[in-house]
């Protein structure tokens, strides 16, 4: 049977099988597994059927724990059920996994294996998650490649039905889940042949059924549990045989052979590496290369990790091997070795003891590849070299430099086994320039159309805006089984000229390679514009150098900044992968396929781009010597802090893997404020200030998501020595003669989002379209602005105690302590965080739920939370996704107890201290900034005194350890709607009920933004989202009303773009409220499908339509006899559609399912009106809806 050849990533390959052999999918998003669930949801919404002709039910749950519960229930009710997850998600499923396995229930959990967060979160791949659940009773089947993941998905489903033992099928997160590669697809007939319908019916027959009732899930006592637990043994024992027989059945149908333990190498190998997952592919390639050099080496790939079949393992391992290295992609601190190592040792020891094996080889264990650290042939060779030593090290690491515990093996960076017939291309691009998309297309063209084999793997940096992408592509006549990054490329494409100034991109170029540069400078001019080291490498490596101004070509044909088609054409034109004419025809076919749905005009523009490219692609004549006077500037300036210079800067350069263990903090503690050193320069256009037009209202800096607009007022005399280009204007408030005002734009940190331009209310009275801020080209401004910023930075910081916090105009003078994050350009969340940092930053503690805000908030190398000129600033931490409310409450509990301790100690020391000082510290109010400043001074004085007493009085030493709590702390629990409405809702609700003085800020984008826009319970009716591809069918949860129902919780619903003043007041009231408060903040988001520059305007429309009413519920108002409920926005003035149909998430449904969209929009409009009527009713009440309950805790000092 001819089976289709396709190009896809590992996730898609797995989902293709899982969808077809299940009836129910219970899902929840988590990187890197989300794609599998998204595909299942999309296919179901499109009516795709499973093997039995039915559309599987795909149900999103509120967490992975919920998904596991739903899986368990569906299985008990007889449905074939699956789920997809990773990392913490898998850990949340663990209790149910014990149950499901204990009840011998067939299912498969497909896991894109990912690091479990420890000293830091990581979204990347290793086996720490699957290893953490290995004792649940599930079987564990591991895949090492995209093809294998596709096939193993079926093996697992077939084997679970036969054995009744549930399976975890796992493959390496990102390396396999996101690698695109050529594979042969299994046909429905293959699936039918392996999935026995009698077993499906048997599964149903075991289901709960009132027609023949029984109970399952009993509780046992000591008399029976133990022996009942042992009943599963025969089922577990049968698993290896069943899996092998299924593998053989697949081999018979497809010719692709798999074994439980796959040995490749010399039959008489003296050294063997044992490894699971994609690492086995690397080891296999390396072994073949080493054997060609005469080495007696081999690799044993473990596919079925649990149950660990000693029999099959011993049969596979060469009898004569002298030394074995077991590589684990996980770390178990304190254990004698990692899990796979221990299994191997135990199995071999037992075999030798029982005489089933003659000799015991030396077995050592080592760790590799944590968090997707690239695992290369050079590393495999290093392991074999270690095994060749008389006493190979145990507990080694490979792939890092461990200069602390000295575990790391030396790796030869020059060692390479890349085959000559394989084309290896590396492309450097920007996230938004289409490089990755074009490369994915290229892979498809070459593999699906031209019949070659191809592989694509894509590396992204940690920013959501202006991120660099590196594409690693291989093409060749044979299957590509090299799951590691290209270290020696014969084609290097640099799609952004400025990358050359920051990074050594040509280090990956092989001698004689082709180098394609997208350059604004033509073939005659470009050479002199290159930094000298780049010139030298081009000469030394004899590179063939080509330039094209792809940006100009794209602009000429109306493609804007999308250079992808142009550069793709260049690649085909000069790489020689395919004959040129053939390649051009295929590119055009691919364009038609990719853009056909986006309109003929888009297609034609891309065709034109292809046609124009060839005439503008030029070879550059390379001179004999480097002549450039351009040097690569230092990554960070010499006056940066030491940590930034020695550690952070290496990460900025893309060389983080070279940082040794000794330079890394041992406990996950990192300095604040490193984003200020990054200077990413990602905007082509930046705001330019017109002081004469400016009304100094502060709106621009208020909405700036990246904190690049700073305002100060200062005495005119300070202008002495200012650069000529430094701008200022007289302060326009009355009563400040001789005082100047300056707005300074930090242009190198600006993303060019233009929210500030849209927010600026000051227009020129004579020049149409000219405002007090306008976008201008950045390049000519940078040098002058650097000087201006340096001058601005030394102007005195405005005294917080003298700034009026009560209006947005005053806020602009407060130092932002959240700056230059890597959030999306025009992010709707970060302006709220910046405001938070301005208002309370110097006494702020933030508990941050995992999500966008934790990623742009603390994904190394850039840390945007920073400190003020006094060294104070937000203390920030992230625990998990699901526990953030509880985590933040913990901050409060500690603060309360230490405040109580400080109060007690201070009272007990009163006799040794100035009584008036003690009294005022204990009783002074700390609401206004001036009051807090006064308390700081008192506490500073107290500290001095205590230090004098510390030697003599232990109480003084104790008090010093907690004395900082005497200054009122502001504790904020921050997260997105996925956390607040779904996975963290139980904890959030509990914290709301606690009455403790914490403030909760929900950055509500109405979807799981960080994982790519999956629906949450905040997603509105009628909008599409991933997991709601057919449009959300129920209205969003009214979390504000739920919180209000407690009666003693301060609740605000805000939208900065609609009413910044109300936002400001809500933040201040929430913080001042002596109890629990929650603010629901509308955040426009890239996942809404809007022009981000219009984000604040869209917020305004959300409010004007009544969709997002602004409200405040302040229980403190009862004390003055007022209604706590205040509706801050007027009745709807526009229909909902005017707001909604500005957004792709709504419009898309109107296009794909117009009738549904109409119906849902009507329903949504009715909901909006009813909700507003209800709110008006609350607002009209003369007294609050419930008697006040005093806040029970969290009293301020």
């Amino acid at each position: 049977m001819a089976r289709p050849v396709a190009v896809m990533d590992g996730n898609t390959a797995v989902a293709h099988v899982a969808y077809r052999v299940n009836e129910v999918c219970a899902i929840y998003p988590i990187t890197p597994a989300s794609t599998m669930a998204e595909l299942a949801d999309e296919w179901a919404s499109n009516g795709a059927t499973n093997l039995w002709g039915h559309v599987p039910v795909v149900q999103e749950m509120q967490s992975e724990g919920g998904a596991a519960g739903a899986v368990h229930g569906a299985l008990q009710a007889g449905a074939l059920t699956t789920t997809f997850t990773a990392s913490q998600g898998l850990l949340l499923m663990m209790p149910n996994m014990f149950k499901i396995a204990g009840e011998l229930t067939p299912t498969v959990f497909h896991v894109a294996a990912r690091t479990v967060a420890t000293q830091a979160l990581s979204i990347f791949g290793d086996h720490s998650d699957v290893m953490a659940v290995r004792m649940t009773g599930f079987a564990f089947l591991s895949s090492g490649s995209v093809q294998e993941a596709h096939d193993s998905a079926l093996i697992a489903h077939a084997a679970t039905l036969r054995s009744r033992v549930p399976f975890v099928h796992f493959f390496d997160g990102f390396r396999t889940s996101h690698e695109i590669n050529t594979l042969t697809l299994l046909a429905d007939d293959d699936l039918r042949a392996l999935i026995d319908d009698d077993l499906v019916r048997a599964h149903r027959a075991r289901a709960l059924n009132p027609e023949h009732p029984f109970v399952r899930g009993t509780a046992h006592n000591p008399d029976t549990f133990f022996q009942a637990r042992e009943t599963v043994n025969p089922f577990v024992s049968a698993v290896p045989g069943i899996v092998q027989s299924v593998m053989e059945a697949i081999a018979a149908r497809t010719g692709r052979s798999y074994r439980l333990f796959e040995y490749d190498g010399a039959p008489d190998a003296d050294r063997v590496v044992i490894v699971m997952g994609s690492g086995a592919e690397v080891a296999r390639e390396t072994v073949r290369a080493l054997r060609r050099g005469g080495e007696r080496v081999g690799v044993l790939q473990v596919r079925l990790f649990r149950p660990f079949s000693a029999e099959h393992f011993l049969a596979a391992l060469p009898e004569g091997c002298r030394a074995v290295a077991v590589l684990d992609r996980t770390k178990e601190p304190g254990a004698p070795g990692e899990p796979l190592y221990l299994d191997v040792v135990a199995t071999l020891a037992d075999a030798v003891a029982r005489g089933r094996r003659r000799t015991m080889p030396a077995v050592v264990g080592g760790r590799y590849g944590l968090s997707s650290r690239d695992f290369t042939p050079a590393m495999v060779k290093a392991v074999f070299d270690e095994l060749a030593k008389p006493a190979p090290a145990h507990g080694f690491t490979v792939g890092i430099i461990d200069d602390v515990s000295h575990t790391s093996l030396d790796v030869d960076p020059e060692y390479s086994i890349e085959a000559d017939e394989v084309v290896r291309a590396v492309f450097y691009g920007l996230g938004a320039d289409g490089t990755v998309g074009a490369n994915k297309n290229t892979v498809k063209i070459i593999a699906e159309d031209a019949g070659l084999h191809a592989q694509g793997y894509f590396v992204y940096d940690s920013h959501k805006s202006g991120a660099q992408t590196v594409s690693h592509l291989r093409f060749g006549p044979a299957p590509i089984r090299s799951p590691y990054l290209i270290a020696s490329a014969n084609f290097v494409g640099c799609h952004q000229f400025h990358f050359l100034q920051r990074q050594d991109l040509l280090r990956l170029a092989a001698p004689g390679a082709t180098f394609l540069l997208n350059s604004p400078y033509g073939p005659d001019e470009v050479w002199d514009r290159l930094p000298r080291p780049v010139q030298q490498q081009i000469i030394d490596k004899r590179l063939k150098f080509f330039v094209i101004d792809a940006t100009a070509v794209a602009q000429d044909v109306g493609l804007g900044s999308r250079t992808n088609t142009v550069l793709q054409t260049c690649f085909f034109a000069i790489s020689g992968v395919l004959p040129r004419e053939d390649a051009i025809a295929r590119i055009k076919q691919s364009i038609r396929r990719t853009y056909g749905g986006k309109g003929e005009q888009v297609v034609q523009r891309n065709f034109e781009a292809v046609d124009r490219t060839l005439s503008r692609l030029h070879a550059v004549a390379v001179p004999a010597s480097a002549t450039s006077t351009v040097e690569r500037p230092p990554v960070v300036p010499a006056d940066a802090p030491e940590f930034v210079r020695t550690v952070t800067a290496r990460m900025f350069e893309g060389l983080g893997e070279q940082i040794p263990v000794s330079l890394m903090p041992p406990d996950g503690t990192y300095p604040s404020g490193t984003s200020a050193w990054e200077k990413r320069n990602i905007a082509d256009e930046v705001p330019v200030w017109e002081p004469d037009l400016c009304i100094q209202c502060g709106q621009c800096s208020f909405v700036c998501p990246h904190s690049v607009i700073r305002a100060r007022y200062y005495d005119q005399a300070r202008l002495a020595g200012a650069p000529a280009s430094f701008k200022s204007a007289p302060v326009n408030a009355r009563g400040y003669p001789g005082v100047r005002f300056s707005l300074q734009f930090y242009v190198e940190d600006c993303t060019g989002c233009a929210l500030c331009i849209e927010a600026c209310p000051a227009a020129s009275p004579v020049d149409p379209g000219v405002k007090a801020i306008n976008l201008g080209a950045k390049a000519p401004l940078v040098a002058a602005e650097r000087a201006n910023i340096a001058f601005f930075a030394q102007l005195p910081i405005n005294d917080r105690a003298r700034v009026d916090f009560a209006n947005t105009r005053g806020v602009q003078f407060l130092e932002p302590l959240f700056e230059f994050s890597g959030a999306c350009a025009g992010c709707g969340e970060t302006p709220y965080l910046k405001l938070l940092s301005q208002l309370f930053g110097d006494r702020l503690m933030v508990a941050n739920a995992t999500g966008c805000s934790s990623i742009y908030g603390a994904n190394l190398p850039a840390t945007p939370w920073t400190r003020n000129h006094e060294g104070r600033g937000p203390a920030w931490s992230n625990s998990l996704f699901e526990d953030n409310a509880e985590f933040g409450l913990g901050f409060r509990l500690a603060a309360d107890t230490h405040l109580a301790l400080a109060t007690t100690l201070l009272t007990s020391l009163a006799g040794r201290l100035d009584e008036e000082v003690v009294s005022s510290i204990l009783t002074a109010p700390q609401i206004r900034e001036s009051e807090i400043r006064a308390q700081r001074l008192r506490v500073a004085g107290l500290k001095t005194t205590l230090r004098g007493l510390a030697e003599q009085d232990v109480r003084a030493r104790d008090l010093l350890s907690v004395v900082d709590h005497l200054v009122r702390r502001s504790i904020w629990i921050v997260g997105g709607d996925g956390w607040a409405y779904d996975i963290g809702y139980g904890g959030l609700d509990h914290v709301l009920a606690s009455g403790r003085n914490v403030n909760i800020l929900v950055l509500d984008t109405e979807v799981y933004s960080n994982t790519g826009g999956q629906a949450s319970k905040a997603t509105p009716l009628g909008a599409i989202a991933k997991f709601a591809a057919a449009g959300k069918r129920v209205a969003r949860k009214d979390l504000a009303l739920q919180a209000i129902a407690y009666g003693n919780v301060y609740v605000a619903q805000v939208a900065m773009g609609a009413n910044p003043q109300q936002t400001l007041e809500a933040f201040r009231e929430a913080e001042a409220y002596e109890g629990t408060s929650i603010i629901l903040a509308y955040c426009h988001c890239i996942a809404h499908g809007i022009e981000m520059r219009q984000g604040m305007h869209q917020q305004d429309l959300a409010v004007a339509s009544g969709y997002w009413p602004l409200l405040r519920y302040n229980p403190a108002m009862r004390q003055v006899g007022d209604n706590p409920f205040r509706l801050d926005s007027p009745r709807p003035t526009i229909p909902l559609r005017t707001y909604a149909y500005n957004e792709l998430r709504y419009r898309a449904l109107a296009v794909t399912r117009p009738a549904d969209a109409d119906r849902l929009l009507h329903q949504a409009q009715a909901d909006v009106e009813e909700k507003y009527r209800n709110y008006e009713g609350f607002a009209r009440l003369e007294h609050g809806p419930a008697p006040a309950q005093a806040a029970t805790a969290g009293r301020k000092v």
Partner: protein
Amino acid sequence: MDLTTRYLGLTLKNPLVAGAGPFGRDLDSIRRLEESGAAAIVLPSLFEEQVAGEQQAVERMMAASVDAYPEALTYFPAQVTYALGPERYLDLVRRATAAVDIPIVASLNGMTNNGWVEYARQLQEAGADAIELNIYFIPSDLSLSGRAVEERYLEILRAVRHATSLPIAVKIGPAFSAVGHMAAQLDEAGANGLVLFNRFYQPDIDLARLAMVSDLELSRPPEIRLPLLWIGVLAGRVKASLAASSGVETADEVLKYLLAGADVVMTTSALLRHGLGHMRTLLNGLEDWLSERDLDSLETIRGRMSHRNLADPVAFERANYLRILQGYGTSRERG
């Protein structure tokens, strides 16, 4: 009372047609218009430019977010990008024709030749009863001659005529040197009806913001004069049926248009001002006027005051202008 009329070769139960307006996007409104007596409904225009613009905007938005961050390589289900086209409009046509018994006229505003032709074909497939070509063209290129502008109109009409067998109405503006000759040419090129006139959106300037304003002013009764003039001139002299559009507020304007020779009268602004039920008020007013005069069919009055039927057609010509000027300030009723 027999109010039937023929428009675009279709027999309508009365001469009142709901013109292209926002209510035409909504099935409930379409049903209510039918219940209120509308004899046909013109749907809001399908703008090729809008479809293309949306496709490009979506492409731009997608491009800004796709493949940029490892946790979120996309932000929307894949199908979103593959269904952007006129499908939403076509679906409206399908549902509207299924929902009511009266004819549904699809309105098309193209940009490229391919757009006019392709969308016209799709509108026919979707079940529209007729197509109204809403040719919106401001010849701001100073080198473009009047003849070339006219040819552009004719070219579009011929292309669409070639692509569809549906009746075609052409909605034109009054800015031709010779409206009558233009109408005759369109007639010749296969137009089944002419809609007089298109009120091209005319920009204004917002003095506070120093910005161009392009909002739409609803039409008022005084605006009937120009269409009235040309309906009167053309009635009975072209094969194409005539639709009057602009300025209908009460049954008076409806009657005037009919007297001048319109086959149907379209109203949009009055429905927006007074609600969809206003259609019934217009119809009642028309019937009352006829009843009061013991007239039992529309045919008895249609075109009675047209150029062709007036004993003294000078009212439609230059002499009329002179008389107005001379009599200005004395009596508005003279002439």
